[in-house]
């Protein structure tokens, strides 16, 4: 364990060590014969990868995976006894036990501290002389992701939409596959298994597109996310330092930068892991589809963290009745989904409010649909006009960014302090040097903003064409120039290495 503890920190997705690991892993993968040997190799790699990230919580992942494998078999066996018949009480009990055990693991490790705090607060309010102390447990990396994936598997087995996996090797690999184990995308086991069983041939085109995807991820994370993160941290970690100096607008800038940072961080991570998986012939689901081009909050949630929203739709919203049980129930269901989403992101009141606010946006959007339609008609607004579309996109982005303040703020008091000040028009912050007092030099800020503009442009283009495919069709000299340019820009201007404090991916905390 001491040796493993010494190695913690080596395997970051944006490190040279990870690239070396990936190259060696891919080379060995295609040298090995047969899918089964390759699966063993991937499982060994995945275990080593998780051990290097979080050696002390590896056993939790193993236990949960083993339990889910066994539970899947029990549930599957019960359901096949009476195929087609409605589920009996013991079928439901088996599923309930399985899901509660997996969810219980998540609750114990992630929410016990919060529950204890709330409980202690209540006991204090009631002036009871009893105050249980609960130690916050070390949060296993990726627990929110692999528990959700496991729950989906158990429910799907129960529903009969997937058969329980017979081979424990393949099942373990589907849960522990190193590109997804830390922060998703939340991939359904039944989508992964056939791909893991298949014998993949070395495909030059797939390798090329995978490497480009990884390169794009590095660009997003190292050029934009980690750089803007310095500015965002300076403002959000100590908001009161910015009081009384007439710098209210700095909070708006920081919130805007956080919106960009979070997108580049999480979508950058997703690009890297999707590219990594593609190197082994595994196609992971898309998690982002140019979300800041959304024209409504509902549209935004169809484009942002798609795999989580799909999960919430399939395993929370629809089982609750979805939109089939009247308007009031639909409103409640939406709010439940977003409250669960908020809590899933973090055990804190700010995440809960963030979720509630997004739910409220959707509910308000629904309730005001007719009013908006009336206004559009009355003001003779052309819905297809560029102006209207820009207005919708900008207003959606504004609403989402406002909600991000709760997501990023250290406490509710901080958020309450920041939000009113965001709208104080202290425009002089752009000329009096305030912008350059937030941890980034002018050059660093310029690099971050120019890189963000490039990402914005490529996102916009990606709505019209498959950019990577388009690039692959170009003359080699042009392609190579792009590749070399991308690599050199990231190597030279990237926010990594000894003099920078490399930040872990934001979603690793969840």
């Amino acid at each position, binding site marked *: 364990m001491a040796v493993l503890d*010494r190695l913690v920190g*080596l395997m970051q997705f944006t490190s040279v*060590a990870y690239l070396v690991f990936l190259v060696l892993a891919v080379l060995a993968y295609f040298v090995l014969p047969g899918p089964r040997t390759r699966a063993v190799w991937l499982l060994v790699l995945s275990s080593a990868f998780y051990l290097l990230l979080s050696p002390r919580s590896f056993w939790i992942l193993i236990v949960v995976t083993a339990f889910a494998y066994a539970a899947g078999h029990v549930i599957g066996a019960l359901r096949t006894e009476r195929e087609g018949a409605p589920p009996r009480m013991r079928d439901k009990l088996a599923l309930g036990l399985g899901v509660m055990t997996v969810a219980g693991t998540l609750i114990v490790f992630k929410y016990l501290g919060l529950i204890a705090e709330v409980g202690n607060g209540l006991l204090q309010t009631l002036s009871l002389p009893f105050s249980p102390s609960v130690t916050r447990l070390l949060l296993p990396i990726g627990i929110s992701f692999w528990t959700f994936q496991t729950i989906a598997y158990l429910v799907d087995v129960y529903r009969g939409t997937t058969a329980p996996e017979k081979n424990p090797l393949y099942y373990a690999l589907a849960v522990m596959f190193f590109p997804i184990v830390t922060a998703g995308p939340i991939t359904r086991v039944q989508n992964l298994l056939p791909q893991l069983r298949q014998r993949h041939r070395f495909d030059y085109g797939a390798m090329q597109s995978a490497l480009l995807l990884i390169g794009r991820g590095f660009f997003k994370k190292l050029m934009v996310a980690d750089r803007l993160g310095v500015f965002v941290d300076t403002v959000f970690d100590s908001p009161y330092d910015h009081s009384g100096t007439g710098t209210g607008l700095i909070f708006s800038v920081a919130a805007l930068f956080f919106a960009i940072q979070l997108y580049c961080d999480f979508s950058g991570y997703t690009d890297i892991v999707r590219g990594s998986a593609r190197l082994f012939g595994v196609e992971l689901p898309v998690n982002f589809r140019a979300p800041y081009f959304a024209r409504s909050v509902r549209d935004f949630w169809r484009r942002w963290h798609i795999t989580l929203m799909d999960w919430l739709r399939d395993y929370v919203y629809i089982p609750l009745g979805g939109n089939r049980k009247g308007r009031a129930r639909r409103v409640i269901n939406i709010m439940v989904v977003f409250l669960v989403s908020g809590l899933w992101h973090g055990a804190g009141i700010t995440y809960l409010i963030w979720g509630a606010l997004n739910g409220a946006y959707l509910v308000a959007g629904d309730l005001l649909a007719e009013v908006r339609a009336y206004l559009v008609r009355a003001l003779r607004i052309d819905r297809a006009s560029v102006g209207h579309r820009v207005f919708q996109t900008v207003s959606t982005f504004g609403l989402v960014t406002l909600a991000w303040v709760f997501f990023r703020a250290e406490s509710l008091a901080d958020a309450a302090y920041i939000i009113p000040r965001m709208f104080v028009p202290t425009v002089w912050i752009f000329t009096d040097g305030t912008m350059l007092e937030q941890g980034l030099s002018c050059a660093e800020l310029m690099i971050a903003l120019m890189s963000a503009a490039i990402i914005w442009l490529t996102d916009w283009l990606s709505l019209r064409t498959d950019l990577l495919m388009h690039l692959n069709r170009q003359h080699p000299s042009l392609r190579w120039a792009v*590749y070399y340019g991308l*690599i050199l820009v990231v*190597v030279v*201007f990237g926010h990594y290495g*000894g003099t920078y404090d490399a930040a872990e991916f934001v979603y690793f905390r969840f």
Partner: protein
Amino acid sequence: MRQSSSTSGSRVRRLTQSALFMAGLAILLGVAHFVFLPRHDRDQLWTTYRALPRDSVQVLFIGTSLIHANVNPVMIWEDSGIRSYALSGSEQSLPTTLEYLRQALCTQTPDVVVLDLQMLSLDNAILRENQKRANFTMMPLGLPKIRGVISGSPAGEWTGYLIPLEQFHSRWSELTRADFDPHKWSTLSANMFLGYRMTHRIEPQQPTTDRRALDEDVYAHNYRYISEICQLAEYAGAEVLLLVGPSSRVNVHDEWIERLDRDMARDHPGAELLQSQLSTQTIGLDYATDYYDQWHLNTTGAEKYSVWLGRELAGSYTLSHPQLDTDLDAMWRAELIRYRQALEDQ
């Protein structure tokens, strides 16, 4: 058949393309490496050492800046005819010094290894990051470097030490035209002579002693590496001399030295201890004129000290190839001429 040959042709074409692409990338990153690596006087420490004729070094000095600031191999050679080299790094930890020695023994078989004891009482945890980085960066890539990096830094920093571009790419904002001049990448520094770094500044000193009580943990950790250095040197057929430098501020307290002396007599009876801080008057060092700070000697101080040290070594050890051999001594002779020229230029 035709299809199979066209498939294999396409595979060969793609493999060639990939190889060409990787070669181009290697060249690009190689140029970036040279541009971004900061230029220091001490960059040539290892390149000069590796350019020495094989097995030509009789005495190898290793340790901290107390070696490369105080010990002038050119003066030692001129006065005593001993071919020596000062292979040290600033604030260099003992684990790193061990790896320096391991690497050094790949091309040289010195008769005596002189280890500076400055680090005996220092905790590795307080070493400055930039010094650690510089010491690792200077080392040629090889097993000793990899071992040194792994034992001397947290896992997250390993690749940064092994691939210096990762550490220094952030210099993009401070690059000047000189950084792009390929001529600068290979020019010998005017201040470096066989590992010795010349400094002319004079700063009068008052002799002081740090009263540092023996810390068992720090001592045990450091002694382990001193012992390993001795073992390695002995294995290579070299004798070991442990040296306390002539600093005006002595931080290796008597208590530490006495303990070390006892342990060395038990574990490495062949190793000697030379406390040069007790001989400053014999050496002729003047606190008013021979130091540039409380630890280090300036050019005149280093000359006096090196002459004294050379004579001590010549009197105590039997060295191989003692006569001036034209081929083996060529480098020392050339460096003496360069050193005299540098003094005149001042």
